[in-house]
């Protein structure tokens, strides 16, 4: 019954699928009460869940999304409390390239429908969270994604079965006790459990999730905010003008996102309090470990800050408790506060997952994030993938994997992995002749959004074919999984490979770094390796690195030490198409890796080479010899002759003043056949 009811919600495609499934279920003997089965179950209809649903739907897979709320994006229905998203909605870039424009659109999900771009939902640069809720609703509806709303999965457990794809099924039990059996479980529940710090008096503390957002409630108050993230500053920003003062307390120093290049750190849009603090207003920032603190309520109902240590030795009577200022009369937090607000972020909800899934362990992020590999698959259970914000342990404080503009690409990477693992669809790739190598890279580094947003996490891979006459181009592969590339993608990497990544300068980003130092930008191609701003970096490997090499790579390196490396010099406009500044050094790098000549030639030059050499450069082989030579025009020819790269053959052999001899000692290009006639070498 439930299944039928659910089917109606799904709309027509779901209905068909249900009928198709039904006989399959009936065929299983002995298990009459077998729970409904799906190949893919997605937990949560937030941005990551919907994004995965979109890819599964496009691939025609059997899937369902479980969502406890009646509509998608319930987190955004409540958060951020002050409703302003800090993800940019840049509607204009001056460019038409849709892929490029996604670099500056941090809210849209990926789809084929140009109407489903966030700029159609909000005109604000920092949009309202309500627009996000509306957008996600539209995304699910327009694309007819199969979401089971009002379905709360209360428990997830494993059912071992050797026939299952991963050796076990995931059994999901919803609030009515109905079980759902899934081959693959995709957890996209986000982080929604507020972080709390346990200290004496923490019951007096209000949480970000419930604190009033009406500034009038804070008129003339002394406010202490615990936390130093965007939610803390967002809260402070809202009441900055009406309070007596705001003090902010947290364990570590403030991390400004423009210094760390990490969007999860404090964004300038929220940092009004920093301004007033540094301009000697009454507001201020303090550093201390929250777990040492205690809050006591005095007889006036105000809150006093003291230390847990004092509390333990006193007799608990509120007014008799030792306060730090008793010993140390200039203690910073000696004033009484009217409110203490906790804004400490969120963590993953581990409670619904059975221990056997081994989602958490005693690792670094064990309390905040579930434990996943760089492929986003759980370390504890094969077939369980964590998507979206909850998967951010992979690139926490590094890249954008915890945010829509980053995880929309990691979700796609997970989907590509699944397509190969379970449906033998190899990782999508395009194959090109080697003469197109430079072009392929230039195109991607200039427009690819996935590389740009998920810098140093997702990278493009170029797999060379035998003898390096052709190559395959794979987009947005999780680069930490490089050693497992062949099994994950189903492509062969026998003849060497390039990895195209985007990177910031090694020592540029950091909470204490001066990112505005003079001479921070690099303009010379030979200094490209010292580029500080995000720029493309190309790694060349003769052989696929092993797992060991990836794991024990040098510190600060995104990948193991390559055979050769190339940096394309940083560019103010992120436009890496300058012929001499960007493309030429890249070509030289590729040429030297492959030990070949990747220049392009006009048909006339190829004609000359064809009759004066036994071998031709790749461009002539792959173009001219296949009747696709580049003829050129008269005006280009003239430029060629002026530049000395082409020769005016009409004058060859006619008596010339210098007797037609090349000057002694002019050295031909290394490795090139020494022929006085090659127009291409004239300039050397």
């Amino acid at each position, binding site marked *: 019954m439930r299944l039928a009811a659910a089917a109606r919600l799904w709309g027509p495609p779901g209905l068909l699928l249900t009928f198709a499934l039904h006989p399959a279920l009936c065929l299983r003997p002995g298990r009459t009460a077998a729970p409904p089965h799906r190949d893919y179950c997605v937990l949560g209809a937030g941005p990551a869940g919907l994004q995965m649903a979109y890819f599964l739907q496009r691939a025609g897979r059997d899937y369902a999304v479980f969502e406890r709320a009646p509509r998608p994006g319930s987190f955004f229905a409540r958060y951020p409390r002050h409703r302003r998203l800090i993800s940019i909605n840049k509607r204009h870039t001056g460019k038409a390239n849709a892929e490029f424009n996604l670099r500056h659109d941090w809210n849209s999900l990926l789809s084929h429908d140009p109407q489903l771009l966030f700029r159609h939902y909000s005109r604000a640069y920092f949009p309202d969270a309500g627009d996000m809720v509306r957008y996600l609703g539209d995304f699910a509806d327009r694309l007819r994604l199969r979401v089971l709303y009002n379905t709360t999965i209360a428990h997830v457990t494993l059912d071992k079965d050797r026939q299952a794809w991963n050796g076990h099924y995931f059994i999901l039990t919803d609030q009515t006790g109905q079980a759902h059996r899934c081959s693959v479980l995709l957890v996209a529940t986000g982080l929604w459990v507020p972080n709390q710090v346990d200290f004496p008096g923490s019951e007096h503390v209000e949480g970000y999730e419930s604190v009033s957002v009406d500034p009038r409630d804070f008129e003339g108050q002394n406010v202490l905010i615990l936390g130093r993230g965007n939610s803390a500053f967002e809260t402070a920003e809202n009441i900055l003008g009406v309070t007596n003062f705001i003090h902010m307390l947290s364990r570590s120093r403030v991390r400004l996102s423009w210094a760390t290049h990490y969007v999860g750190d404090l964004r300038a849009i929220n940092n009004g309090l920093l301004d007033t603090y540094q301009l000697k207003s009454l507001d201020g920032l303090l550093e201390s470990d929250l777990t040492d603190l205690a809050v006591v309520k005095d007889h006036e109902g105000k809150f006093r800050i003291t230390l847990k240590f004092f509390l333990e030795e006193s007799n608990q009577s509120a007014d008799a408790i030792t306060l730090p200022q008793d010993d140390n009369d200039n203690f910073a937090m000696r004033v009484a506060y009217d409110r203490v607000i906790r804004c400490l972020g969120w963590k993953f909800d581990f409670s619904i997952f059975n221990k056997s899934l081994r989602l958490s362990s005693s690792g670094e992020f064990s309390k905040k994030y579930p434990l996943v590999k760089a492929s986003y698959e759980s370390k504890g259970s094969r077939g369980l993938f964590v998507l979206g914000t909850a998967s951010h342990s992979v690139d926490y404080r590094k890249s954008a994997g915890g945010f829509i503009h980053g995880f929309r690409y990691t979700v796609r990477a997970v989907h590509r992995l699944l397509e190969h693992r379970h449906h033998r669809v190899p990782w999508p790739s395009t194959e090109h002749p080697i003469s197109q190598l430079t072009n392929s890279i230039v195109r991607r580094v200039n427009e690819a959004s996935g590389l740009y947003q998920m810098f140093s996490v997702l990278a493009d891979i170029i797999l060379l074919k035998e003898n390096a006459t052709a190559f395959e181009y794979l987009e947005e592969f999780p680069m930490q999984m490089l050693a497992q590339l062949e099994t994950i993608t189903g492509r062969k990497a026998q003849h060497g490979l390039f990895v195209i990544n985007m990177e910031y300068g090694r020592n540029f980003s950091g909470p204490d770094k001066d990112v505005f130092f003079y001479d921070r930008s690099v303009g010379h191609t030979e200094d490209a390796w010292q580029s500080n701003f995000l720029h493309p970096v190309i790694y060349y490997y003769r052989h696929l690195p092993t797992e060991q090499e990836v794991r024990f790579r040098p510190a600060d390196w995104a990948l193991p030490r390559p055979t050769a490396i190339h940096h394309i010099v940083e560019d103010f406009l992120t436009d890496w198409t300058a012929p001499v500044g960007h493309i030429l050094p890249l070509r030289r790098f590729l040429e030297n890796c492959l030990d070949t000549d990747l220049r*392009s030639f006009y048909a006339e030059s190829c004609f000359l080479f064809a009759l004066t050499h036994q071998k031709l450069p790749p461009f002539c082989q792959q173009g001219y010899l296949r009747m696709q030579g580049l003829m*050129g025009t008269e005006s280009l020819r003239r430029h060629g002759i002026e530049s000395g790269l082409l020769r005016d053959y009409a004058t060859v052999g006619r008596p010339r003043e210098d007797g037609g001899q090349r000057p002694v000692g002019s050295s031909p290009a290394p490795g090139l056949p020494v022929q006085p006639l090659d127009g291409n070498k004239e300039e050397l």
Partner: protein
Amino acid sequence: MMSSSFNIFRVGISFVIMCIFYKSAVDSLSELSPQKYFSTLQPGKASLAYFCQADSPRTSIFLEELNEAVTPLQDYGISVAKVNCVKEETSRYCGKEKDLMKAYLFRGNILLREFPTDVLFDVNAIVAHVLFALLFNEVKYITTLEDLQNIENALKGKANIAFAYVRAIGTPEHRAVMEAAFVYGTTYQFVLTTETALLESIGNEDIENAHLYFFHCKQVLDLTLQCRRTLMEQPLTTLNIHQFIKTMEAPLLTEVTEDPQQVSTIHLQLGLPLVFIVSQQATYEADRRTAEWVAWRLLGKAGVLLLLRDSLEVDIPQHANVVFRRAEEGVPAEFLVLDDIDSLISHVESNVHVEEIQEDEDEDTKSPNMDVQDDEVAETVYRDRKRPLPLELTVELTEETFNTTVVASDSIVLFYAGWQAVSMAFLQSYIDLAIKLKGTSTMLLTRVNCADWSDLCTKQNVTEFPVVKMYKEGKNPVSYAGMLGTEDLLKFIQLSRISCPVNITSVQEAEEYLSGELYKDLISYSSVSVLGLFSPNMTTAKEDFTEAGNYLKGYVITGIYSEEDVLILSDKYAATLPALLLSRHKEGKIESIPLANSHAQDIIQIITNALLETFPEITVENLPIYLRLQKPLLILFSDGSINPQYKKAILMLVKEKHLDSLTPCWLNLKNTPVGRGILQSYFDTMPPLPLLVVVNLHSGGQVFAFPSDQPITEQNLLLWLKKLEAGLENHITILPAQEWKPPLPAYDFLSMMDAAASQHPTRKDPECTKETDVQENDKKQHEDKSAIIKEPIETLRIKHWNRSNWFKEGEKSFRHDNKEL
């Protein structure tokens, strides 16, 4: 020195790093308090001290350069120190203001000179100025010709003069002169000027470069005579000056009686050749005068010796009057017969391989410049970038307009990328085509810039550039696969106007079709018209032919006739149905080919082969088709149209099947001027035309030339080909079989990163702190991470100023603000 080395990173970096390491480990700038400094001064010893405030910037360009100058100055016995002015110990040398700090040169504790730091702008300037001050007596600075003449007169019969012109004080050339003066200053009088007028007045116009003259005054006894002058031709570097002076010191002419192969002089050691003037008793006097004359002319370029033939034990060729011996070991001496001195001089000068002994400063010019574009397409497109193209002649399509446009009208679409040189070069041809077709074609010429409409291109399956597709009548688009040029694309568009194959409906129409009347305007694009003849019931054969016709659309005209009266045609042209009729319009011939059991692929092959001519004129456009035959080419190079007799001879040989193993063709140098380039590579100099060669491209690469003294006749050719086949002919050249390697190296960023990583711990940064002992100082720097990290970056930055790439610097100033994340 470091700066330029960085430019040739590949080889230079390790060296540079070693230098840095060496310097910082061995000679670093000592830091002292004023009191301590003055206590270290030794009588008679020179010392350069830079006084600076303790709180002045920790690093500065000057300090870095000063640090670099420590080693070279120490070579001259000059110590260098940085004196930290601290409050407790003031000194009168400590300036009041930070900006006015100066460097002082002491000898003993006597102040010789003070230098504002801006005078000592780099290591060259520091060394040059210090030596200049110390060698005040040895080096005379002059400003007028009169000064020079006075010195010259004063030294006649006494000493020789080294006269140098440098563009400015403190330049690397000035330093080189001063360093030479330090060594030779007591032997020769050094004279220095920076006056261009003075240089010009002694007859040298090249004021851009530094010059050094050697004035041979010592042997001038007659005071009215001028001293002979020898101009040094190499650039002014310390080593070159040293070499030059050494040759000036060597005897002008030496008489020898040994085997020229055994003689050794200073010249050989300096890498200069030896010239032996062969003399005999009878002509000794004259020979000696000649030899002296030659010696003066070759002074500094070669050593000149007089070889006395009569007393020589080894044989030298009878007629030889000059023996030339290169400096390189193992190169045998050359015996020459030269008629006059000039030819001797020019022979020596053209053969002198002057081993450029260059110091690091000059390596910039030696290393190939990797930043110079060597891609002809990229360079030509770049040079042409400012010429506006009449792009409006083609319709620019976007994601929004693409589908409606290609559905609404028959369109050619060029997919290109604005940043990609090859597609931009082709765009020019495309625009030329649009100009040609303006107003005449029903085909809409459109273009899509894939740099803007990336998704659209991907959807149209375009992932490389450029790509041309034809969208017609809502059918699947046809990709153009021909040459990327105006003519070939025009041909494709014109031939695509008719359906392929064309359905012919009557015998009369078929005759018109075959005669070329039916598509008069098209036969210039397709030299052959193909007509398939089928009985109405031959359905499969017709389908196959239609498929083949579709495939060849745009490249050749095909038609199909399968009416009941098809026998009229098959009888007339002696064809057995199903058959092909090939009408070659140029030759006015129609031939028939049976088609029984031929599949589409076979038919395509038959037609493609039929398009090949027996003796084509080879061009840039058609060579690839003939190369596919994989046979050696028999090419007749002709300057203009081919002589009909030659053509006849070759066609006769073809007819008699003597040329089956070759692809005979001819090349018209008027139409295909690049043929001259080919001939030059075969023969070095242009041979007389016409000329017949066989090029064995596919196996071995040998090139054989038909003897130019024989007339090209059937018999001669046949004989020659027979000899060729029998292996009796010698090839004139073999085409190189090398692979195409990278034209230039790439930046080795990996090594640079390694070098930087290993550089940090050893790198010292000069700073103004209170006097500390060296160990403590070191430790402090290790702790101060940020300074260590920033240091190498700044080092490199500063170096770039030296390269005086002013436009790049200008560009850089716009870069100071960079973007948000």
